[in-house]
C-alpha cells in the first residue's frame, strides 16, 4: 500500500486539510477553543494537567550542524566548508556543542532544562521526506499505518475535539486517529475579494426552504466562514488586551513572512494560560531541506527555532500552568555526514531530538553516533525515536506507551522525573 493511500482526508488535499485551515472537519476557532476554558474550576484542573507541545521541523534538519561534534576530526574532514570551528560552538561538553546561533537554548542547557537525545532514528531508515515523516508521525517504521501516534491516543481516551490542537495550516497525520482527530485552529483572518462584504457572504450562507440537502450544506459553509471569522476576531480582541510578554525581535529574513513558529507557540502559551483542556499541541517550522549553500539558510532557521523556543520557555516558566508543559522537537531525518558538492547536505538518517520545559531533566541522553562507523555514508541510530515518544506518552499523557506505539515496548528515558 502506498503511504499516501489511506490518508486522503489529509495532507496535500486542501479539502479537509485546507478546510481545517478555518475549521472544517476537526476544525475549531481559537475563540471557541478559549471558550472551552470558561468554567473556572474546570480550567483550574486543566491548568494542572501536564501538556505536550510537539515541534516538527520539516525538510530534514542537519543534526550534525545543530549539535556539533566539534572535537571529532572526522566531522571537519567530512564537511570542510560546512563544519563549525571548535571555538565557535556553544559547548555542552568536551565533544559536543550547540550551533553558534542557538544562544537561548544554550542558556536553557546551562539551566538544566534542555535534554538532548542523541542519534534518534529507527531501523532501516527511509530517505524519502514523505515516508520518513510518515514513520515519525505514525511511529510505525515497519508498516505504513493509518493513524498518528497522538491520533491513536485520542482514540484510546475517547478524546473531545480540543484534546489535541494544531496551529499549522493543515492537520498533520500525527493528530489523526481512526475514530478521532485533533483540531486545526486557524491563525489569521478572513480574506474576501475586493468589494465583497461579509454581509453578502452571510446572505449566501442562508438556507432556503425546499433546497436539496447538499445545496444547504454549500450554504452552511459560507455561514460558518463568517461565524469563524467573528470568533477569531473576538479572540484577537482578547489577545490584544491580555498581558502578553513582548515577542523577541526576529532578524529580517529572506524567506518572507513572520516567524510563524513563534506565532504558533505564542498561541499555545495563550491557551495554556487560559486553562483550555488541550493536552497536546502540534506546531511546525519548515525549510530544513538544505541541499545547497546550507550554512546561511540553516543558521537562519536555527535562529528562528532558538528564539521561538526560548521565548516560549521563558513564558512558560512564569505561570503555574506553564510549569506543566513539555516540548519535544524532532525532524524526519538528519543529513549525510559528508557535504555534497554544492555546500549542502543530502538526506541522511539519525539526528538529535530536543526535549525541554520546566519539568525536564536537562542533559544528554543516548550516545552520539560514530562518524566513522557509518551505514552507507549515514549515521547509525543509537536511540529508537519511539523511546522518546513512549516516555512522553507515559510521563506527560499518563498513557500506556505500547498501546499507542503499535505494541513497541519503549525503553523509558528519565526525561521527566515525577515530583
Amino acid at each position, binding site marked *: 500500500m502506498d503511504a499516501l493511500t489511506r490518508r486522503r482526508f489529509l495532507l496535500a*488535499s486542501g479539502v479537509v486539510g*485546507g478546510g481545517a485551515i478555518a475549521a472544517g472537519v476537526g476544525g475549531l476557532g481559537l475563540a471557541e477553543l478559549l471558550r472551552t476554558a470558561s468554567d473556572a474550576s474546570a480550567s483550574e484542573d486543566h491548568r494542572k494537567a501536564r501538556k505536550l507541545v510537539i515541534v516538527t521541523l520539516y525538510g530534514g534538519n542537519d543534526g550534525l550542524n545543530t549539535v556539533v561534534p566539534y572535537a571529532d576530526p572526522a566531522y571537519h574532514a567530512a564537511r570542510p566548508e560546512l563544519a563549525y570551528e571548535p571555538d565557535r560552538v556553544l559547548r555542552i561538553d568536551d565533544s559536543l556543542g550547540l550551533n553558534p546561533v542557538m544562544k537561548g537554548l544554550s542558556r536553557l542547557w546551562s539551566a538544566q532544562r534542555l535534554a538532548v537525545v542523541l542519534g534518534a532514528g529507527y531501523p532501516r531508515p527511509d530517505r524519502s521526506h514523505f515516508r520518513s515523516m510518515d514513520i515519525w508521525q505514525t511511529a510505525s517504521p515497519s508498516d505504513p499505518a493509518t493513524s498518528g501516534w497522538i491520533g491513536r491516543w485520542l482514540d484510546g481516551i475517547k478524546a473531545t475535539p480540543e484534546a489535541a490542537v494544531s496551529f499549522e495550516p493543515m492537520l498533520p497525520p500525527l493528530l489523526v486517529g481512526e475514530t478521532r482527530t485533533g483540531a486545526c485552529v486557524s491563525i489569521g483572518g478572513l480574506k474576501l*475579494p475586493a468589494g*465583497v462584504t461579509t454581509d453578502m457572504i452571510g*446572505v449566501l450562507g442562508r438556507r432556503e426552504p425546499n433546497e436539496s440537502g*447538499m445545496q444547504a450544506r454549500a450554504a452552511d*459553509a459560507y455561514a*460558518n466562514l463568517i461565524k469563524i471569522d467573528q470568533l477569531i476576531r473576538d479572540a484577537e480582541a482578547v489577545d490584544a488586551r491580555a498581558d502578553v510578554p513582548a515577542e523577541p525581535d526576529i532578524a529580517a529574513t529572506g524567506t518572507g513572512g513572520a516567524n510563524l513558529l513563534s506565532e504558533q507557540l505564542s498561541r499555545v502559551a495563550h491557551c495554556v494560560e487560559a486553562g483550555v483542556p488541550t493536552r497536546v499541541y502540534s506546531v511546525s517550522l519548515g525549510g530544513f531541506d538544505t541541499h*545547497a549553500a546550507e550554512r546561511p539558510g540553516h543558521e537562519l532557521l536555527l535562529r528562528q527555532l532558538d528564539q521561538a523556543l526560548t521565548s516560549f520557555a521563558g513564558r512558560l516558566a512564569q505561570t503555574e500552568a506553564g510549569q506543566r508543559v513539555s516540548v519535544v522537537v524532532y525532524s524526519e531525518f538528519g543529513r549525510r555526514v559528508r557535504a555534497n558538492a554544492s555546500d549542502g547536505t543530502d538526506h541522511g538518517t539519525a539526528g538529535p531530538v530536543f526535549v525541554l520545559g520546566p519539568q525536564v531533566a536537562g542533559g544528554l541522553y543516548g550516545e552520539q553516533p560514530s562518524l566513522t562507523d557509518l551505514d552507507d555514508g549515514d549515521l547509525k541510530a543509537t536511540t529508537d525515536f519511539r523511546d522518546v515518544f513512549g516516555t512522553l506518552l507515559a510521563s506527560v499523557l499518563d498513557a500506556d506507551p505500547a498501546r499507542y506505539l503499535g505494541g513497541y515496548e519503549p525503553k523509558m528515558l528519565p526525561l521527566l522525573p515525577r515530583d
Partner: protein
Amino acid sequence: MGFAYICCMADASLLLRRAGFGPTASELAAAKKAGYEATVAALTAPTAPDVGALKAPLPGLGPDPFAGLSNPTPSQRSKGDEKRREQTKRITQWWLDRLTVADHQTREKLWFFWHGHWATSVRKVIRPQLMLVQHRTLRSSLDFATMAHRMVTDPALIYWLDGQLNTRTAPNENLGRELMELFMLGIGRYTERDVKEAGRALTGWKIDYDSGRAYFSPASHDGGRKSILGVTKNFDAHSLVDLLLAHEACPGFIAERLWFRYASSTELIPMSTRDNMVRAFPDTMAMLRRLFEDDAFRASAGGLVKQPTEWFVGAMRQLGLRPGRLSDEVLTYALNALERMGQLPFAPPSVEGWAAGAEWLTVGAAQVRLNLAGRIAQLVPAQRLTPEDVAHVLAVETWTNRTYSALKGTTDPQRLLTLGLASPEYLVT
C-alpha cells in the same frame, strides 16, 4: 406548457451539467430544443469532429530534463527540477484549456473521470512526460478492458505504486492490492492471499525513464504458479488483468464508480440501474449512456457537488475565457486555488482519487473558492449586468431568494459574477 415541459427543461440542464464541464447558454438552449433523448445521443456518440479541441492539441514536452544524466551535477539537478515543474505546469494548463474548448464535453469529462479512477499523481511520479504518456493511454483506450491491460503496464502507474521495485526476490504488493481494491473489483471482494499472489503476478515490470516506457524483465519476474481468486496458474500481469476483468464483481464495480461521480456520491446505485449499465460493459461510454437514460439519474438532481475542476472549467466556458490564455500570475493563482480546494489535475491527493460531496464544501474551500471567483470575475470586461444576466450566462435556471437578495446588494458586474459563481445553486447539480 405543463409540468412535463418544465421537468424536461430541468432534465436537459442536469444532463449537460453532469455530462460535461458546465454548459454555455447556447449549448443549453440547443439541448432544450433538441430534447433529452437526442441530447443524450449527441453527447455520448458525437458525429461531428471535435473542432473546438483543435484549438488545444496535446502538447509535446520533449525528453525529460534528466534523460541521459546518470549522475547529474547539483546545477543540472536544480535546472532539471525547475524544468520539470515548468513542464508540469504547462501540461496542467493545457488540460484545463482542452476541457474548456472541447466540443465533445462528455468524452473529455469521461477521460477526466478515468484520471481520478487510476489516480496517479505527478507529485510522486515527478516526470511530467510519464503523466502525459498515461494521459494518452487513457484517451486512446476504447473500452475498460483495453484500458486495464494498458494501465497495468503504464510507467506512471507502475512508479506511483512502486511496481518497478516489485521483483521475484522482493515482492511488493502495492500495485496488486490497488488493482483489486480501487481499480477493478472493489474492497472486500478478494482475500489478503489474493493480494500477495497478484503482487507476484505483477513482478518484473521496470521503467525505462529516458524513453518513458515500461518493459518486462524476465529475470525479475516470478514465473511460478499463483492462486488468485480461486484460479491457479502461472499468472503474469496480463493474465491477471484478464482474470479480474472476467470476475463477476468487475462490471458492477465500474458501474458503481460511474454512478458515484455522475449521479450521487451519497446514495447507492439502484440494483436495476447497475444491472442495466453492466450489460454495456466494458464500453464505458455506453454504460454512461444507459445511466443518463435511467430514471434514477433524473431523480438524483440536487445531490452532487461540482468538483473544483468542473466548477473552474465551467466558469471559463460560460464566461468566454481560456485557461490557455491566462497570464502567468492568474494561472499560478488558479492552480494554487485548485490545489487548495483539493483538485489539481495530474496531482490527485491519493490513490483513492478525488474527494466528493460534502468534502468539497468545507469552510476553507469556501474561502478559496470565493477568492478565485473574484479573480475570474476580474477577467470579464462586463460593464453592466443584472442578476438575471448572470443567471443566463452561468446557465442557472433561477436564483433562490437567498442568492437573489445577495445579488441585489450590489450593481458592480464583477461582484455580481463573483457571488453567482460562489452561490450554492451554482455549486450543486
